[in-house]
């Protein structure tokens, strides 16, 4: 196996390297990728067309919004996939409404507990800032969602899984993730119902108090919030499934 792998890797590497001399030199502003009208358009026309200064956010949520919708779906699929592969107990917890009576609480360490108490609200505030300010600075729904999810992971690490699940109960996770995608595709379907193409936000100025250009910018914010919902929920769900080996009882 090892020698076979080595031969494959050397062949592939040689093949890939054979084209390097053909590449434009590193950082060349005249290279096809940087000089082509596609990249030029994204740099110069983004602000006039959508009034968003961060080009990455604009391209992500508007020009290639269809891609980003499926990026969110990838996250969602991963969450459901991991739940369906690993989850042990039948999902009857969704049917009974009684509170969880089991307790697996470990003794909280004073230093860790206090630090996390201080840190978690700040992390969450920062996550919200990242989501809301994604138009003007690096960030956006995905990054903010991951950071928000990470704050719950930190809670679960510092206390135990139950403590975190009081904030994000398992039954709410899937709903939250689904609602996130529904928000995203809702913007798309709203455009369709108003008579335009899927995700063509411009038409939404009919139902928004905004000019067509502003409608694009506002819809992007809405879409990013949807992405953030899904990411928060799924990141925590993946962690809780992996850390408890699928039974949601004990954490690490």
């Amino acid at each position, binding site marked *: 196996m090892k020698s076979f792998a080595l031969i494959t890797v050397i062949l592939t590497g040689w093949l890939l390297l054979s084209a390097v001399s053909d590449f434009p030199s590193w*950082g060349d502003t005249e290279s096809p990728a940087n000089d082509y009208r596609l990249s030029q358009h994204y740099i110069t026309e983004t602000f006039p067309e959508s009034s968003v200064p*961060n080009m*990455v*956010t604009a391209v992500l949520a508007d020009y290639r919004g269809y891609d980003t919708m499926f990026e969110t779906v990838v996250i969602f699929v991963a969450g459901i996939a991991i739940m369906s592969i690993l989850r042990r107990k039948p999902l009857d917890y969704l049917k009974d409404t009684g509170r969880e009576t089991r307790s697996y609480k470990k003794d909280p360490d004073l230093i860790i507990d206090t630090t996390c108490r201080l840190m978690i609200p700040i992390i969450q505030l920062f996550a919200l800032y990242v989501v809301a300010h994604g138009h003007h600075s*690096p*960030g*956006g729904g*995905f*990054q903010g969602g*991951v*950071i928000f*999810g*990470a704050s719950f*992971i930190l809670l679960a*690490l510092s206390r135990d899984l139950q403590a975190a699940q009081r904030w994000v109960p398992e039954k709410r996770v899937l709903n939250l993730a689904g609602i996130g995608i529904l928000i995203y595709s809702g913007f798309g379907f709203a455009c369709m119902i108003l008579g335009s193409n899927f995700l063509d936000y411009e038409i939404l100025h009919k139902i928004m108090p905004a000019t067509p250009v502003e409608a694009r910018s506002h819809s992007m914010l809405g879409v990013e919030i949807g992405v953030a919902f899904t990411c928060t929920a799924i*990141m925590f769900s*993946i*962690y809780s499934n*992996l*850390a408890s*080996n699928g039974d949601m009882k004990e954490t*690490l």
Partner: protein
Amino acid sequence: MIWAFDLITLIFLVITAIISLQTKDLLSAAMIFGVYSFLMCLLWAGMAAVDVAFTESAVGAGVSAVFLIATVLRTTRRSSD
């Protein structure tokens, strides 16, 4: 971007990649993989790809490493290669 900084980071990247794949203890492999992701994130920040670097620092160095550690602690730390 300063090429010397670039080169040093890249060399460290190769080293961390090899160490993380060669070490027998999976927990340290996961930790070194976090270091690898963080170096990657530095490199991207240097290439003016701030959004990508931001994502990688949250996802690669943060969440991915936590997932790996969770799995290692739930299975076994021992690895034959």
